[in-house]
């Protein structure tokens, strides 16, 4: 078994890691030595190191941070950095822990990114519901400002940048980077059309803006302290470094784990004692979500895949936000499908009609199937509505038994952002594998034997 790597989690067991003293005393590198190392070389050299290290974005899309930073058009000022701490993809639980337990690590990551691109200001956008994370970051920022680590003439050099903590107010869609920018400008959090509003060119206040996930930035201090070669020693060639994954659902020991990216398999995460510790009650695995509620489902055939963006994408899903939800054979596929679709229906911002109307219809149809009022035509109708939101074959895992191939990621979309198309993931995933469960709910009088205990009329 591989030794557990500790790039971003090295202080999680240190009770006072959230303080400046704790940050500088403990961990796999010494706090604020990363920015010191960066300040010894030119901003362009820092950008080059991040590019060479292939620091993949940890928010969902997995885009390399160094490449993203390079998209800022030359000669256009000011540039801003916005930290996406609006973690709300169902199943995702990692950025909150990073913010609560090691806020200085994130602040130092912000400084390194700001230095590399020449940012005028950094906005740290934390999800509204995370009061404790807000407190920890506010306290850490106050400490950092007081110790000349943020603000004017940082560490006695000419480098100066402000970091401002900003709170959200409860809207999943604000995790989408252009919606996040709208929200930060004081508006309703509705995504902008791309093109022309690619944040790196026209972002906050129409200025070049880099939006990075919390975990992505949290990797930077370690990288600056230990170097590119050390960073690339963990993980695979295409996906170096580590990933934070939250393994939740029907495993014996759910948890948030830092694992080598690109090499660790889902099987290890579910069955090894170090991680999930096996499926509860010795049950069989029925399906799992490999990367957040937006990700098409995987099944036992995919369990040996590594946590590698390309591989998972080719197999019909995505690594996404590291949210892995395990469902055993007592899980009702229709009920799970409805719950996820209902989420997207509730969180649709309403800007694009295929999503606003479509997700609501999907929920309504699944609800009536669940309630025993489904119609035989409903399954085709569901797929038809899905096709209006995401035309063409939708990404889905292979189904060897039925002789069906995988459809690779990503889906097409008739909407501005991926929220609507994401609502299709559980539908095509569940229908391809468990069509009989849907049909049974529509045509049979009794509930299918797979169902868990009925729960007080609610589903």
């Amino acid at each position, binding site marked *: 078994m591989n030794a557990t790597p500790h790039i971003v989690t090295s202080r999680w067991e240190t009770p006072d890691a959230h303080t400046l003293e704790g940050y500088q005393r403990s961990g796999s590198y010494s706090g604020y030595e990363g920015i010191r190392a960066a300040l010894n070389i030119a901003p362009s050299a820092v950008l080059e190191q991040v590019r060479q290290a292939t620091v993949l974005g940890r928010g969902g899309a997995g885009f390399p941070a160094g490449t993203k930073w390079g998209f800022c058009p030359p000669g256009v000022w000011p540039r801003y950095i916005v930290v996406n701490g609006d973690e709300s993809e169902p199943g995702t639980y990692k950025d909150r822990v990073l913010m609560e337990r090691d806020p200085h690590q994130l602040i130092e990551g912000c400084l390194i990114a700001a230095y590399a691109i020449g940012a005028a200001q950094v906005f740290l956008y934390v999800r509204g519901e995370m009061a404790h994370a807000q407190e920890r970051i506010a306290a850490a920022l106050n400490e950092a400002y007081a110790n000349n680590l943020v603000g*004017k003439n940082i560490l006695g050099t000419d480098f100066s940048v402000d970091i401002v903590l900003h709170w959200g107010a409860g809207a999943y869609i604000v995790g989408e980077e252009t919606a996040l920018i709208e929200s930060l400008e004081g508006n309703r959090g509705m995504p902008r059309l791309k093109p022309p509003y690619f944040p790196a060119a026209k972002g906050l206040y129409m200025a070049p803006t880099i939006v990075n996930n919390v975990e992505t930035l949290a990797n930077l201090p370690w990288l600056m302290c230990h170097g590119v070669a050390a960073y690339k020693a963990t993980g695979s060639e295409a996906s170096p470094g580590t990933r934070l994954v939250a393994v*939740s659902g029907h495993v014996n020991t759910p948890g948030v784990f830092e694992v080598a990216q690109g090499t660790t398999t889902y099987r290890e995460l579910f069955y090894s004692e170090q991680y999930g510790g096996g499926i509860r009650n010795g049950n069989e695995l029925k399906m799992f979500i490999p990367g957040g509620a937006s990700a098409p489902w995987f099944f036992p055939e995919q369990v040996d895949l590594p946590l590698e963006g390309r591989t998972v994408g080719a197999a019909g899903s995505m690594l996404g936000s590291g949210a892995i939800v395990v469902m055993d054979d007592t899980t009702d596929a229709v009920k799970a499908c409805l719950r996820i679709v209902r989420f997207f229906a509730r969180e649709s911002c309403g800007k694009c009609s295929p999503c606003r109307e479509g997700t609501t219809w999907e929920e309504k149809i699944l609800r009536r199937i669940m309630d025993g009022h489904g119609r035989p035509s409903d399954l085709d109708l569901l797929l038809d509505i899905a096709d209006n939101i995401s035309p063409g074959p939708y990404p889905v895992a292979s189904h060897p038994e039925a002789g069906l191939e995988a459809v690779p990621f990503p889906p097409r979309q008739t909407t501005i952002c991926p929220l609507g198309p994401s609502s299709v993931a559980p539908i095509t995933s569940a229908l391809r594998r468990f069509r009989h469960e849907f049909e049974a709910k529509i045509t049979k009088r009794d509930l299918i034997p797979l169902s868990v205990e009925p729960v007080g009329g609610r589903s």
Partner: protein
Amino acid sequence: MSRFTRENELLAREIIARYPRPKSATIPLCHLAQEQDGFLAEDAMRHISELVGITAAEVRGTASFYEMFKLKPVGKYLINVCTNISCQLLGGEELLEHAEQSLGIRSGSTTEDGLFTLEDVECIAACTEAPACQVNYRYFNTVSNEQFDSLVEDLRAGRNGEIPDHGTLGRVRQHIEPGQVANITAPEQQSEPGWFRDRNTAAAAEQGEVSS
């Protein structure tokens, strides 16, 4: 009441000064108003609009998009039970059902004594601790029915521990001493940071020397 108190208005101005454009402070100020009154009152939205220089309708337009802003009073304790997928798999819906029966209200409603508002919410990022709930955005993990009841009992008896009244989020605020601010101005007044230009130019010159 409902407009900012003198003290909060000063705080509001401090928050506005941290942004390149005042309108960016709209959401933080809505939170401040909610902290003051427990909900986001009409007069507060008007006051915010005056402070950030937009119309009251624009403030409402923004605020009404976000779930956390309550345009009508809610209970002193807002209980959010997560029923999204990870919690659903381990009894989140059963916990909500129990909470409804225990409090005698449907989710979305407030108890008659004004103490509790119950909500059925989407993922709150506590997926490995299912089923989870929050009271005024403070977490409670792997909550059993019995634990839920004793939590409610404690709150009724005034044993609220670390939980502030509804509206208060982080109790530590960011504060930047005026002398420590690097450079916060409107985007139009910004140019390429001197340190960035100088340092890259110096490095490029050095590189030129090395290669020549």
